[in-house]
């Protein structure tokens, strides 16, 4: 059976490659000149940041990780967290109103047996079930901003492995500094936001696309399951029924669900989607700024210690069980013809990483800015440090409940940040840790809806409504006409900036979203050029509040990758 699936996927990949522009003719680089001679540190930038590393993790809400920050329970035997005296207390979390923990709106009877106050998840409960995080389900949980229907609408999904914790009302659980210890220590020493949101409601793929392109509008379906309609109006209705997309009056489709990217040899052969918007990779290519995406499990030739390889490469979780490293529907660049690498082709050399062309030649490098996570360590360690690096951990470390957990996530993140702090270019580096989605985990805060949507998929404030009809504007799509399916801001998520220029022990209250990431890249390297086509990069808030470019914090913070506790704090010699 497996063989049949794989060979079908291969055939599909060939078919798609034949009808869509592959990496060889891709993007903005038709002049085919040697673009590899760029010195990243000499590129003009608006800030002292010469290297941005975006670690894009999965499925955690802000209160789920920072609900009681900076107060941890500190039970015997767990990593201890004690906050610094000057830790800000004006944080919008579960401590901002005592009733949130003792008389929570989710106690209401509509939640049935799941009705509960928020409760602490212990470090031994790092391995939990996954919650429901559909575009419509999350809107229902938010209940017009009442934030009171989480257990009944986004409660327990899959069960996790043998040692996992699950209960009715589990969606109300939160971790503290005894479990997400590294995050809390980064927050103590660098900057975070308590006002960071998904650009829209919904799961992983829309989050990844908003981080990369600021929009989910405009897609085609090169692969549709047999028997399903391929054209309107049937196609839009089928997408709505599947909770995957919304049809618009301008004829375009907006993606609201998780569908695998077109042509990726690892994608499901059943249904595949291709986005048509411009993305930040296109802008970076146009300006000849070295950049790359580094993805755990991307190199199909690698053989893991357990003997797995190819699309089925997998890793063992420290909480038990295995997870397949590469998850196609999390991988932003694969959705766009201009930035995809559907065959997972390897770069010609470590020196070619980050560049469109092979160094010293006019030949287009086959990797098309898409690499394995291992390549990041190899390239940066050898002095080839791209200006912009997007990181996707292998799925056991991506934070997604079920296939990952906060402890494996912590290990992956700490190893990466420890490594970067040892590089000579750390003093011009900023690491952003952000999320694609909340997973549905309870959060008490809601943002005023600024991008309305009024489609059958919308249920925030009454059937068919996300926003106030006639008052809340709908965002524009690629065609310039208003489109549905982009309702937001959606769920609130952690957002941490780790950099010598991050304000120390600072909590920013400026409203930002996933699209604030491409906005920062545009502001820093691209003279604030915007993506257009209704991308949220033009309208969202700026992350600049989390930086102080006049004051460099030269203290290195090396954390223990298992416990997240502080190993050493050293004055950097750089």
């Amino acid at each position: 059976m497996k063989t049949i699936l794989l060979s079908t996927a291969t055939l599909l990949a060939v078919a798609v490659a034949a009808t869509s522009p592959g990496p060889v003719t891709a993007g903005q680089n038709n002049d085919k000149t040697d673009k590899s001679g760029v010195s990243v540190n000499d590129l003009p930038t608006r800030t002292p940041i010469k290297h941005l590393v975006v670690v894009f993790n999965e499925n955690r809400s802000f209160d789920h990780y920072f609900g009681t920050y900076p107060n941890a329970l500190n039970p015997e035997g767990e990593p201890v967290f004690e906050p610094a005296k000057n830790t800000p207390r004006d944080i919008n979390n579960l401590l901002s109103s005592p009733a949130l923990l003792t008389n929570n709106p989710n106690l209401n009877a509509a939640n049935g047996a799941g009705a509960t106050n928020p409760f602490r998840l212990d470090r031994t409960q790092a391995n939990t079930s996954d919650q429901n995080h559909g575009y419509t389900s999350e809107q229902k949980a938010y209940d017009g901003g009442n934030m009171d229907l989480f257990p009944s609408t986004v409660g327990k999904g899959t069960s996790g492995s043998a040692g996992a914790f699950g209960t009715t009302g589990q969606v109300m659980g939160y971790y503290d500094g005894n479990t997400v210890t590294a995050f809390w220590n980064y927050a103590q020493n660098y900057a975070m936001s308590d006002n960071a949101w998904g650009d829209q409601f919904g799961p992983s793929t829309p989050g990844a696309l908003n981080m990369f392109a600021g929009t989910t509008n405009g897609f085609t379906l090169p692969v549709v399951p047999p028997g399903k309609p391929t054209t309107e109006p049937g196609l839009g209705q089928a997408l709505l029924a599947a909770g995957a997309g919304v049809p618009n009056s301008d004829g375009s489709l907006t993606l609201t669900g998780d569908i695998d990217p077109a042509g990726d040899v690892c994608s499901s052969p059943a249904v595949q989607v291709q986005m048509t918007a411009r993305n930040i990779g296109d802008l970076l290519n146009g300006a000849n700024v070295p950049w790359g995406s580094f993805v755990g499990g991307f190199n199909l030739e690698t053989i893991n210690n357990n003997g797995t390889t190819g699309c089925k490469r997998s890793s063992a979780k420290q909480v038990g069980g295995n997870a397949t490293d590469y998850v196609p529907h999390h991988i932003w660049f694969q959705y766009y013809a201009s930035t995809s690498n559907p065959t997972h082709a390897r770069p010609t050399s470590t020196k070619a990483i980050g560049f469109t062309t092979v160094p010293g030649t006019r030949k287009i490098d086959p990797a098309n800015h898409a690499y394995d996570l291992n390549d990041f360590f190899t390239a940066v360690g050898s002095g080839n440090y791209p200006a912009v690096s997007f990181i996707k951990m292998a799925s056991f470390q991506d934070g997604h409940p079920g296939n990952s957990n906060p402890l494996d996530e912590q290990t992956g993140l700490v190893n990466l940040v420890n490594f970067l702090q040892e590089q000579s270019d750390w003093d011009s580096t900023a690491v952003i840790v952000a999320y694609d989605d909340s997973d549905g985990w309870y959060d008490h805060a809601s943002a005023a809806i600024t991008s309305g949507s009024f489609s059958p998929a919308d249920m925030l404030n009454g059937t068919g409504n996300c926003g106030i009809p006639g008052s809340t504007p709908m965002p524009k799509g690629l065609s310039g006409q208003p489109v549905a399916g982009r309702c937001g801001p959606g769920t609130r998520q952690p957002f941490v900036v780790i950099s010598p220029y991050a304000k120390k022990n600072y909590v920013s209250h400026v409203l930002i979203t996933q699209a604030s990431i491409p906005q920062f890249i545009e502001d820093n390297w691209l003279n604030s050029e915007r993506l257009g086509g209704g991308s949220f990069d033009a309208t969202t808030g700026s992350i600049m509040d989390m930086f102080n470019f006049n004051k460099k914090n030269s203290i290195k913070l090396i954390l223990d990758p298992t416990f997240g506790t502080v190993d050493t704090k050293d004055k950097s010699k750089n």
Partner: protein
Amino acid sequence: MFNRTIVWFLGAGLMAGAVFAAEPQDLPGTNPNPVHLIHPPVQPLSAMARLGRDVFFDISLSSSGKMACASCHSPDHAYGPPNDGPVMLGGPQLTLPGMRAVPSLTYLQRQPDFSIGPDDKSDDDNSPTLAQRADAGQTATRVQKTATQSDQSAENIVPQGGLFWDGRADTLQIQATGPLLDPREMDGGSIEAIAEKLRQAPYAKKFAALFGEGILKNDNLLVAEATFAVSRYQIEEPSFHPYTSKFDYWLEGKARLSESEMRGYRLFNDPRKANCAGCHTSKPSRDGFPPLFTDTQYEALGTPRNSELADTRDPNFFDLGVCGPVRKDIAEQTQFCGMFKTPTLRNTAVRRAFMHNGVYQTLQQVMDFYNFRDTNPEKVYPIGADGKPQKYNDIPAQYHANVDVIDPPFDRHPGETPAMTEQDEADIIAFLKTLTDGYKPEQ
């Protein structure tokens, strides 16, 4: 990368060598290719696990006031049943017989979720339903399970993983809730009743310390935390997964097998003989985890009906495992009727109830079942009114096609030579005894 592939193939070859070509070199019975095994970390029990230990041994949670988790999952019997009968007795007076033999709680910490076909843990967003996976299985070819082909058969689209004989629980926490509420076991009554007992328990203050005072007011969460604590005790407490059998030491080159044990080991792994390892995987995983002696897949073996069980007094009662009657979610997948989970064989020699219905009391009987089911069914099944052995008499006729007749030794026919001699069976049993934990290697 190509070179690395070759190295891996060589590695696999060496392992096969360890299995089949262990000719005495210097010291007889040593493993010519010792391996390094990854053992679970041993750390002090967390506060959660210590709370779980209290719950695990708490007899007050049962209606009889005399039965704890540990009563059936006895620490002195590899967390299996301590009694001689096929099932344990429970309920308010400890007189009600259970439905199935009590499984061991050992070696479950790596158990994957129940799934049909390999569980794809990359995609918790888009997991196909069990029904969809079952449909895929209808058209997929199934690879014969042999001791030397277990990597291929692991990909079969058949039920695998999960807890209980029918896989109806995925987590040890959910599993622990089952006996707690089962009227024939601990008979806890209801979540509310159990929560009240937890509030009265001497360890109640430990809940408040870990979860805050509010926990004692929330019945559902209190019981969920209590059962999770039990699962955490199972995960952390080393005696649930000690990996201290003679065979583990032999794998690492620290013990010698006797001549009989070594012969048994070869027969166990020989696809033409017992072929036990076709399902009871005996190889360490490629990344060095010790073998679990189960592929966690499900099989319809056609085990004889156990007339000792109370349920079987009803001639229309059939325990069909994955498709019911206890498990209810995939009852319509009748191709799984009669299937039960392949258990680990670690510590099997300390058991006195074998198969899901406890029909056998000795390993000898179990070996005879495998050996004679197809060649001499009259030795296995009762003889019917027609004078013929009532083959598969614990499965209704319409599901007989589900019984495994593919995997050796079940591919034989009446009159053919049985796969094993009497000596073969004795040697295999000698080998199975090397899977009992607590072996003390010579220094």
